[in-house]
């Protein structure tokens, strides 16, 4: 609708859109530029500015040099922690969610709608209601302050989302397909493996992207259940900016922020379409 020639109204639209785009990009641009300025340069001017001399060394320092709390190994160990939590938890929760979604949508069993209903309540229950119980559980099974503990939490809690995503996708698969396979004598896993999984790649990509982004970006559990060297990178960033024992190194800190944000940003840029689908699927519960 509207006219499609270059009337003044079109120019206005482009102008407004460009202003918005600039506002959304500005923080990223500022941080990228800062990550290439020396700490001294930032201290003398402000956080916003063009690099006078390119300080590529900030990235090396951020990656493996500067100190968080008492340890001086950069954010590399924390990035590794995040990866060691995020990757397994994403795989487990997605696979288990796919099986569960398949079971509740196509392989109806006694009590399935009840249990499905309860599991999806997990989408709404605030994390604060689960913090203390998780503390007790993790302590009792000896997983407090371990990456395994975080994997367990994210797997179990992720099930709410992954089951919902997959179930909503699988209900659209014609039941006749399943019925015919069952008459041929195919069992639960065979049907899943042969019929369902080959149809699932779109929803699995959506689920993996969603889970990866959420677990990578998660902070509350990381900061509550792990300390020091076991923390994921989100918690380490907070520890870094709260490191009162040091004169701020904004150049290096900016580089650290960029590195920490990079995995999810890359996933977003590469799988944008699926990312957006996850957003809308997650919203329309």
């Amino acid at each position, binding site marked *: 609708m509207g006219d499609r020639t270059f009337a003044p109204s079109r120019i206005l639209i482009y102008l407004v859109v460009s202003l918005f785009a600039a506002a959304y990009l500005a923080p990223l641009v500022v941080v990228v530029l800062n990550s290439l300025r020396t700490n001294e340069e930032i201290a003398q001017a402000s956080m916003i500015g063009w690099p006078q001399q390119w300080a590529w060394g900030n990235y090396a320092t951020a990656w493996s040099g500067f100190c968080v709390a008492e340890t001086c190994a950069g954010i590399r160990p924390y990035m590794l922690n995040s990866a060691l939590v995020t990757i397994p938890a994403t795989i487990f929760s997605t696979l288990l969610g796919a099986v569960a979604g398949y079971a509740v949508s196509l392989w109806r069993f006694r009590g399935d*709608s009840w249990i499905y209903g309860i599991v999806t309540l997990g989408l709404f229950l605030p994390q*604060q209601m689960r913090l203390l119980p998780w503390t007790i559980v993790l302590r009792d099974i000896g997983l407090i302050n371990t990456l395994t503990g975080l994997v367990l939490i994210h797997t179990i809690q992720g099930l709410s989302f992954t089951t919902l995503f997959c179930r909503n996708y699988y209900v659209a698969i014609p039941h006749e397909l399943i019925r015919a396979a069952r008459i041929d004598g195919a069992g639960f896993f065979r049907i899943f493996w042969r019929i369902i999984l080959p149809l699932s790649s779109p929803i699995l990509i959506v689920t993996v992207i969603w889970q990866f982004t959420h677990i990578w970006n998660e902070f509350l559990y990381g900061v*509550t259940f792990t300390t020091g060297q076991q923390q994921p990178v989100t918690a380490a960033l907070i520890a870094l900016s709260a490191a009162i024992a040091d004169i701020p190194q904004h150049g290096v800190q900016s580089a650290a922020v960029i590195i920490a944000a990079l995995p999810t940003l890359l996933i977003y840029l590469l799988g944008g379409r699926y990312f957006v689908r996850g*957003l809308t699927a997650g919203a329309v519960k």
Partner: protein
Amino acid sequence: MTDVASTATRPGRPAISGVVGRLPEYLMIWVPLLLSAAHLISFSLWTIWISFTPSTLVPVSGWVGLRNYNAVMASRNWHIAFDNLLLFGTAFVLLSLITGLALAILLDQRIRGENVLRTIFLYPLAVSFVVTGTVWSWLLNPGIGIQKLVHDLGWTSFRFDWLVDRDMAIWTIVIAAIWQSSGFAMALFLAGLRSVDADIIKAAQIDGAGPVRTYWRVILPTLWPITITVVVVQLQFAISAFDLVRALTNGGPGIATQLPALVVYDLMFQRGQLGRGAAAAVLMLLILLAVLLPYAAWRYFQRRRATHG
């Protein structure tokens, strides 16, 4: 959820021998689902129970009635957190709705570079709240951020010091939250705009309605369901906002930007007052239910109307 067609595939009562053979599938189905359901129920009940006990550093049994709730609700921290939540929730949801809708309408004008623009408006959603909060804490810090830049440029009377102004600090969280997640509203609205029936629009145009009138009278009214979804999702975020505040203001200056989630964490893990922390968590849940229950009821009636109407 109950699907009439699928009841035909419900397996009958399996024979005993069949049960053993099908054990793996039962395990695969039931163990994860039961673990998930069981943790949700037992964790909630346990936290609710703790909120009625005199637990401080460690969980203990005992019954103190509503004492923890009274203590939390009488505390300045909770008062401030609750007032902030009302302000932050309202401002953030309204402004992000407006921003998201504006962006969606602009993008809906068949403009060049729509894909690039959409990518730009949505990328903040891929970034963690910790990163968002940290970056905005630099930009909004008067000593090193925007204000300092403007001063260095020569306009020395310029003031933009909300981050250190206890009355305005909550707005810095609104700004960062809108930057982070108005793209979400945009994505949903855009999808809604694109699904409006082209015939209705054409009919309106034939009637002589200009673009503004068409939007206002014809297109926007169809977006109500999406608007409600966006509001509920954003409110849910606002109620449990933690990371963003932790990274941006950490509840300060002073305790001016406390929010319920921070109070809960603080009571549980910093002040060693588990009972009160649990009570605050339950209060958070109640606030959330006040938003979600009407939404669930609305959804229920909508669906009933759709199937019966």
